[in-house]
C-alpha cells in the first residue's frame, strides 16, 4: 500500500506540513500566529517565515484584528481545492487519525472517514464521521485513543464500528445507512482494497 505520509514528506517540509495541516485542515477558520505556533509545535521564527511565504504566494490571507495578524487559507487561490485535498490525504486529518489508531491496526479490516469532511462540505464546527470495520475492537478503547487527534484537529470524532461480518451483512442487505455511506465520497485510512469492496 502506498504510504501517504511519504508523499507528504516528498512534497513538503515538516514545517510546511504542520502549517498547511492547520490552515488547510480547517480552511474556514482564522488563526493568529501564537495559535499556529502552539498547534504546530514548531519555533515562532520558522512558522513566521513560512506564513510570510504562503501569504505572498496567495495561498493564505492575512488580516489584522486588534494587535494580532489572523491567517486563513485563501479560498480564491487557483489550487485551493487541490491543496486542501492533498493536505487531508497526506499529512492532515487522515494521517493524524491513522497515527492515533495505530494500536488497533492488527484488528482493523478497513477504516475511513465519511460525511461532510469527506464530501468537502464541512464547516469549522463539523464533526468527523469515522467508520471502523474490524473484529474485537471496543468503543471504550477507541474513545481512549482519539482525544489527542481530536485536540490536534480541533474537531470531535464520532466513530461507528462494525465487525467484518456485521459490515458485510449490512452491505449485502443494502441496509440504508451503509448503502448511503458506501455511495458517498470517503477518505480512506486503512484497507481501501478490502475484499467486501470488490463485490460492488
Amino acid at each position, binding site marked *: 500500500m502506498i504510504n501517504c505520509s511519504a508523499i507528504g514528506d516528498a512534497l513538503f517540509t515538516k514545517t510546511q506540513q504542520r502549517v498547511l495541516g492547520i490552515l488547510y485542515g480547517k480552511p474556514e477558520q482564522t488563526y493568529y500566529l501564537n495559535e499556529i505556533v502552539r498547534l504546530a509545535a514548531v519555533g515562532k521564527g520558522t512558522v513566521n517565515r513560512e506564513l510570510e511565504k504562503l501569504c505572498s504566494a496567495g495561498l493564505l490571507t492575512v488580516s489584522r484584528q486588534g494587535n494580532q495578524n489572523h491567517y486563513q487559507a485563501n479560498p480564491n487561490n487557483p489550487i485551493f481545492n487541490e491543496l486542501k485535498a492533498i493536505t487531508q490525504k497526506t499529512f492532515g486529518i487522515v494521517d493524524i487519525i491513522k497515527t492515533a489508531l495505530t494500536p488497533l491496526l492488527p484488528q482493523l479490516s478497513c477504516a475511513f472517514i465519511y460525511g461532510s469532511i469527506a464530501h468537502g462540505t464541512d464547516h469549522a464546527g463539523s464533526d468527523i464521521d469515522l467508520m471502523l470495520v474490524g473484529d474485537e475492537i*471496543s*468503543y*471504550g478503547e477507541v*474513545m481512549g485513543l482519539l*482525544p489527542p487527534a481530536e485536540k490536534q484537529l480541533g474537531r470531535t470524532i*464520532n*466513530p461507528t464500528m*462494525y*465487525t467484518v461480518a456485521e459490515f458485510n451483512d449490512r452491505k449485502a442487505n443494502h441496509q*440504508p445507512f451503509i448503502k448511503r455511506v458506501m455511495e458517498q465520497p470517503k477518505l480512506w485510512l486503512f484497507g481501501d482494497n478490502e475484499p467486501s469492496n470488490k463485490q460492488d
Partner: protein
Amino acid sequence: MEVLDNLVKIKELNREPPNQVEFDGMILAATTKLHDVKLQGLSSDSQFSLAYSAAHALALAALRWHGYRSDKRYIVFQCLQHTLCLENAKWRVLDQCHKRRNLAEYEGHLEIDAQLLKELIALANEMLGRVKALGSIQGKSGA
C-alpha cells in the same frame, strides 16, 4: 463542586438540592430497565433504548446527588467524569450512544452495532454500582 459550579455560571447546569425520594426512584427505574434488558426475545433497538435510558437515569441521579440538574442529556453524560469519576473514554461512549439516538430521531430508525450495545449495557451496570456507592443523601459529607 467547583467544575460543576462553573457550568452553572454558563447556564449549562442548574443548582437544585438533592431529594432522596427522587434519587431512589431513579435508581429503581434504572434497575428495572437493566433487568428488562436481559429479557429473551427483545430486539436490539429495544435493548438499546432500555440500556440508554437506564444510563441516563443513573447519570442524572449522580448529578442530582451532587445537587445539580440539567435537561441537556449530553451535559448530564459529560458531568459523569466529575459526578461518578468515570474515565473520559467511558462517558465518551455514552456520548456516542446519545448521538446515535438523536440521529435515529431524524432518520426514523436506529442503527446500532452489537459492540456499542454490549458496551452500553456493561457501562450502565457499572454506573448502577457507582451510583449506589454514593450512599444516601442525608449521609453525604462535604456536599
